[in-house]
């Protein structure tokens, strides 16, 4: 087997079990860049393009289940945006329209870049990942899955099948800072999602740490600094901004500086919170 295009998940899992050196390709938007540049040797390919079980999304009893093969374009569409606006907003910032047509949310997870655009939303939502191999299936929390920059807990022979997140009641915002108005890698990004039923706010922070981070201190602040009867922020937003910054651990690189990222993540989180609780 040197190139397989299985139609079912079972066939896909069998293919990668049979060939431990197979390269799994979904949208190809990260992998092919490596292959084209000669940085990734390939001896066999298993394409997930036609695997039926990875396609589409559905809602059931307060949960949204997104097939790992869903493209960013699918997540941008109004029907999806109505359910999970922050994820739709994040998807819309990924690369170009062509990239969004090809790239998948499962690929965003598997690549596990700290700048992965959908990841702050998924981290904020405590997404659960369904992972399968030819012999077993397991479920793992995203925070356990993303173990480092471009490092995941995905093991030999496993595929990400789907991502499950709770459908929340309340407004959501995703903001991303980049140095171009489109088609740009994140310098800092933030997802702020209200959870009115739980009287809390969920915050994910992108590109300000080795992995996408949860804004835990800032979230704790919102529990006592939002009036959950009127849905208004009553606390001092400067405290919130400081806590967001303390939740983040940015670095200097060629795209930006630690100092700017820290600055920007705080500003963006404040703006997001103000939009969510106007």
């Amino acid at each position, binding site marked *: 087997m040197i190139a397989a295009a299985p139609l079912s998940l079972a066939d896909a899992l069998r293919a990668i079990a049979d060939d431990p050196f197979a390269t799994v390709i979904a949208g190809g938007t990260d992998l092919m860049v490596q292959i084209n*540049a*000669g940085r990734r040797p390939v001896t066999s390919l298993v394409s997930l393009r036609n695997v039926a079980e990875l396609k589409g999304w559905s809602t059931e009893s307060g949960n949204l289940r997104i097939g790992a093969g869903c493209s960013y374009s699918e997540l941008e569409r109004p029907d999806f945006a109505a359910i999970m606006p922050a994820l739709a*907003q994040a998807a*819309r*910032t990924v690369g170009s329209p062509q990239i969004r047509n090809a790239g998948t949310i499962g690929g965003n997870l598997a690549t596990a870049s700290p700048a992965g655009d959908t990841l702050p939303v998924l981290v904020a939502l405590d997404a659960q990942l369904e992972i399968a191999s030819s012999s077993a299936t397991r479920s793992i929390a995203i925070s356990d899955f993303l173990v480092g920059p471009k490092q995941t807990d995905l093991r030999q022979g496993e595929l990400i099948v789907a991502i499950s997140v709770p459908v929340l009641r309340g407004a959501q*915002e*995703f*903001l*991303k*800072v*980049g*140095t*171009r*108005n*489109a*088609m*740009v*890698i*994140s*310098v800092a*990004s933030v997802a702020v999602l209200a959870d009115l039923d739980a009287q809390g706010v969920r915050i994910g922070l992108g590109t300000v740490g080795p992995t996408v981070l949860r804004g835990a201190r800032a979230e704790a602040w919102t529990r006592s600094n939002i009036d959950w009867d009127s849905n208004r922020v009553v606390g001092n937003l400067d405290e919130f901004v400081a806590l967001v910054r303390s939740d983040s651990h940015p670095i200097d690189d*060629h*795209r*930006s*500086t630690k*100092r*700017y990222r820290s*600055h*920007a993540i705080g*500003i*963006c989180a404040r*703006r997001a919170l103000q*939009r969510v609780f106007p």
Partner: protein
Amino acid sequence: MTAGGLKTRSPRLGESAPRPDGIPKVLGEFAFGNDLWADGMLWGKTLRAPHPSARIVSVDIGPALAIDGVAAVLTAADVAGKKTYGLETPDQPVFASEVVRYMGEPIAVVAADHPETARRAVAAIEVVYELTTPLVDADLAAEGTPIHPDGNVFRHLVIRHGDPTVQGEVIVEGTYEVGMQDQAFMGPESGLAIPDDDGGVELFISTQFLHVDRDQTAACLGLAPEKVRATVAGTGGAFGGREDICLQVHVCMLALHTGRPVKMLYSREESFLGHVHRHPAKLWYRHHAKRDGTLVNVEAKLVFDGGAYASTSSAVLANASCFAGGPYLIPNAFIDGWAVRTNNPPCGAMRGFGAVQTCFAHEAQMDKLAAALGMDAVELRLRNVLKTGDAILTGQVLTGAVPVEEVIRACVESPLPPKATGAMLERPGGAGRTADAHHVRRGVGFAVGFKNLMFSEGFDDYSTARVRLQDGVATVHCACAEVGQGFVTLVQQIAREVLNVDDVIVAPADTSVGSAGSTSASRQTWMSGGAVEGACRMVSEQMERNPGASYYEATFEHHHAPTEQLDENGQGNAHVSFAFVAHRAVVDVDVELGLVKVIEVATAQDVGRVLNPLQALGQIEGGIAQGVGLAVMEEMLVIDGVVRNANFTDYLIPTTLDMPNVLVASLIEQPEPGAPFGAKGIGEPPTISSTAAVAAAIRDATGAPVIRVPVRPEHLVFAADLVS
């Protein structure tokens, strides 16, 4: 072309004639260098040094040659002719053999049966480097240990004009910096070489300077120039980045060595590493003025980082220095210009050619001076504009059209754009949804610039055209490289106009006709346009003398008026002609995040005469896009000599969501004496002052000093101490 059964008249000069290559280009049928193919063709690939400064201890090509499918691996030892090349000084090795002077310098080339084989072969070549400390600070280069036998100073040019000791009543001083911009043309370098039976080689090459490619290639191959037959292959943009050779010698060496056709095409990364860039520059200025705003003296020190090899650094510095004051009457000046060698990537030609860097600085200074005087910045400029009969800093008296006042007035009098419509996408941050309406502050900035047309300082950059008229069809043969600018359209318009014919064939640009010089310096409309006009007029005269001939043919060499070298004080009539331009930029800035959205750029430009309105508009909009890019995003990031962003992921150029609408307030048509049809070149001026105008608008919106372009968000946020 027919309409209603009647043959329509083809567009003449002054009309928006369609491009003859437009249809093949929209069909995807136009053959770029990258698209060429030959039977039995091999693929060439370059091994490049990963270090900016190193001694090469050893190169072992054995493991590469052992790979199946590899036909040749060549190094410096295989260069049969001259070991070095260069547009002004032959100081650049065809292959580095002992010393590596910049990251990406070629060490070896491979020819193989598949690009992937070639890539593996390149990876298999074993090079042992002994790393040395790179010289990366241009300020230290002149005094530093030479990193090349020719030394570290490409040129030190001093302009002493009038009495540079004169002091003004009001003095403003500033230091500015311009980052390294890249031409980032869309079609990466490519070429196909086919060995000939006579020991020569045929070269199809994406280029902007065909004959000098041919001459430099032949010299390095050890062949007579006529043994290298070169043809311009479809060229996907140039903007200065194809004025130097890159793969020309390599691909011909591989073809001659293997006896087979060889194609080389650069990846985007190689393209960034393989051609010269716009010089990064540090610019110190002190402007002196009277209280009424009259300029009395300008002092400046310009340090241009030329990188590892000379390329056109010397001419770039001359432009930077000659136009360092801007299009103003400046009676006294002292300009201390330096172009130096470092272990940074080599720099050379890019649209605007030295005038872009100094324009950013002199226009910032003019705004600063206006503020110090409490005077309107446009009024200050109008008070000091150059006029016909005035002398520039080199003492050269302007004899042609000098509509500086006209471009300024037209530009500032054009209506300002309306407030933003409210769509998030239109705000700074764009798709990232970072800004709400109340986070955005609008700013308006203004800048004026000028530069020379054609080559200067005594260079006779002539052009040649051959025209044949037979059976009512004119065939024009000129080696002018069509790189996208639309010369092929202009050729047809000129031939139709002069010969009064409709059918004009543009023959392939090759070396079987004389040189047309470089497609650069805004010179081809004037130089090659003039050559085509001259040849057409000769044909017309033949027709008058001999009406019944079966065909007419003439070749014309067009030379511009001679120019002089600059003397020891930087004085002299060094330039042929000049073009002037003004830009007004409107920006929206998210001050807290330091993100900028350019809303509109208005412009007025001195064009002499518009020969093709649609193409003129295309040059203006495209040139402004590159100016906007330099202002807000474009920079080769080079840290300790290492290029960090040789790709389109991190070298950002404007997208449709970044590029503003361009408002052409006016094209000033004052026919230029001596110019064919009175037309000035129009390619470069759009890039000269658009960057400065955007920078000024950002200053207006934020109060930040903006002393460096491209403006990065962190510079805006922290420099202005606007942290909330």
